[in-house]
């Protein structure tokens, strides 16, 4: 399970970042990247099936809990190996590791609920919409349409 992005819909407003920061005591676990000025892609933790960050963590602070890659703050030493291991650059270390917890305890991830453009979903099984595929192609070729 992870947050899925419809690049066609993303408007680069960074609401997901601000909302994430709001509910996580000031730390933000999303980064919106811009391609060619107007295409934008928020990068979230993929909650990988075989998560490199878990393998890298010597202290058992990162572990699988169902589909989620969970994090135990008590065990984290802030060594930063998980940040180095993450292939998407979306786990970072600021004294301790910071990563997406899919808003544990809330009915859905806050970024999904707040996205003004309805670009995010927690349901990866949903059929691709309208221009999603075309948008992905044009973002990967420099972000022009």
């Amino acid at each position, binding site marked *: 399970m992870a947050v899925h992005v419809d690049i066609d819909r993303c408007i680069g407003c960074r609401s997901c970042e601000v909302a994430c920061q*709001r509910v996580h005591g000031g730390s933000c676990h999303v980064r919106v990247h811009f391609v060619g000025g107007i295409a934008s892609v928020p990068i979230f933790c993929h909650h990988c099936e075989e998560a490199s960050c878990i393998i890298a963590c010597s202290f058992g602070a990162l572990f699988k809990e169902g589909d989620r890659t969970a994090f135990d703050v008590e065990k984290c030493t802030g060594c930063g190996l998980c940040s180095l291991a993450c292939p998407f650059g979306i786990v970072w270390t600021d004294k301790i590791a910071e990563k997406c917890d899919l808003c544990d305890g809330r009915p859905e991830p806050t970024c999904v609920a707040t996205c003004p453009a309805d670009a995010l979903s927690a349901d990866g099984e949903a059929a691709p919409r309208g221009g999603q595929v075309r948008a992905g192609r044009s973002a990967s070729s420099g972000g022009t349409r």
Partner: protein
Amino acid sequence: MTKVLVPTVCPYCGAGCGFFVAVERERAVGIEYMPDHPVGEGALCSKGNASLEILHHQERLTSPLKRKGDGWAKITWDEAIGLVARGIGEAIRDYGPDSVAVLASSKCTNEENYLIQKLARLLSTPHIDNCARLCHAPSVVGLNRTLGAAGMTNPIPDIANSRCIFIIGSNLAENHPVISRWVHRAKDAGAVVIVADPRETHTSWMADIFLQLTPGTDVALLNGIAHQIIEEGLIDRGYIAERTRGFEEFEGSIREFNPERAAEITGVPADDIIRAARAYASSPASTILYSMGITQHTTGTDNVQAVSNLALITGHLGRPGTGVMPLRGQNNVQGACDMGALAEFYPGYRRADDPGTIEHFSAAWSAPALPTGPGLTAAEMIGAAASGDIRAMYIVGEDPANSDPSSLSVKRALEGLDFLVVQDIFMTATAQAADVVLPAAVWAEKEGSFTNTERRVQWSFKAVEPPGSALPDLEIICMVARSLGLDFDYPDAASVLAEINMTVPQYAGITRERLGKEGSLVWPCPSPDHPGTPILHSSGFRLADGRASIVPVPYRPAAEGRSPEYPFLLTTGRVALHHNAGSMTRRSPSLIGRVPDLFAEINPADAEKLGIGDGDLVTVSTERGEAQAAARLTEGMKRGVVFMPFHFPGTNILTSEAADPEARIPEFKVCACRVARRD
């Protein structure tokens, strides 16, 4: 511990998203979304998510202040109100009521705006306005003339029913982010999206057809599109015959305006103009969304009329998925206008120069000597302050020292007033020029109704107390009015809304009780059993014979063009993470942290010639002054054009005071400038 969820309306843009403020032990501790809200469906943009940062901000004004030397002294409310009564009273006594001007606030509630304009008019000054002047005055003038009503014709969610969405002069993806979801819903069902803008924006990312026009050439583009629609016979003859007047004259006026001619002026390829014309005219339901890219011009009223001409000749009005949609920028700019906080209109858009209006309100308010308008508009007040015709001003929740064009001269004019009282939540640049500053409450610290851009009136509830001795604007206005001898006896917002129900016909059925029970109502709602009117003009227009006017609109160039000394065109606008003059968002850590500084977008080819690299500090100068900004090189910028957001104090030092002759809106979107690297 009990957590209470208090429903409020977002204090930022005109979309009117709702959210709950979570309150624990009388403190706002969080935000909960509102999934059943008709516009946002629970979504909230970055500014809405950051709104509580303003509520608890350490720089909030917490006590009335008076100027003392170079600094400020805290004073009691009694002393402050006494000083205000004396300052305004002396101006009236010595120079007459005409020497006093009042600026109402498109951030305040309907009830507060109603009282502010009533206060001004009971003092016998016609000079009342609000910053709608700087955003949608041309919509008020133009659409009242052509369609007989100035609001958005259709609701925001109805955009999903459209099959062609023409967005011109609006970067809604950044400025009204939630509207994007409705555009995308239409796209999912096959709608074509056309975007016209001098810049590639996050809105143009949604476009199927992108028309990158030169700033200030909107009339040429719209006339070219209209020409092609007529040429190809794509007009709705039945609609034109039954519902409109003026078509023949209009047709004659654009006979020469073929797409090639439009292409020459706008810089948009003629083929794209033809594609746009076909897409808009031939779809079963097309809508036009526009914003300040249309209005903030010396041709603002013309632009608006050219937009409404397109809708009228194709009959794209009065049905689901159609419409003319001015997107308004502030949470209650629609309401402030509805309430008559405008130089040329009393409440309910009754003309201020009509003796019938004066008679009506004289009776309603038991006031024998109401002023006939139009009074001075927001920008004209500043000019009159500079010339000494205006001696005293009462400014509520507005920051003209940052938001008006040519801001250095605005500051000088404000400082030259005999008396200035500013009522706000922070010490803004305008408040810095005041004699007395009154601390006000923010949205969640008071209650009242707000009207969003689609004419939806919503009640926002009080969640927490204001900080220190700050007070809700409604209470402050009543204190000021009473100190000036007026009988303002309003215990709460509900009692003011009850008076609005009596005096503003569009709001007659929008009672406090119904806003509680039914959540929100869309005006016109003429009686307590009326359901409201989400779609306007479905059975004719509120004009003579029920017909709309198609108006010939000749193309006129912008007031300033490029010159050897100033070889670029500067156009201004907004970014997603900031709002207007920035007094709130520049103080909001999670927003200012993301966009910390003023920047200037420039095309890389232009930058190369000037030896400017990405991120270099540049000086942008115009005839009025200069500002520093960081260069942002982007291919999405049209050659020869520079863009700067106006959330930072530098930008409006540069902009021009040249204004639309009718609507008096300044031309923020075009002025000639020079760019140089700062070494």
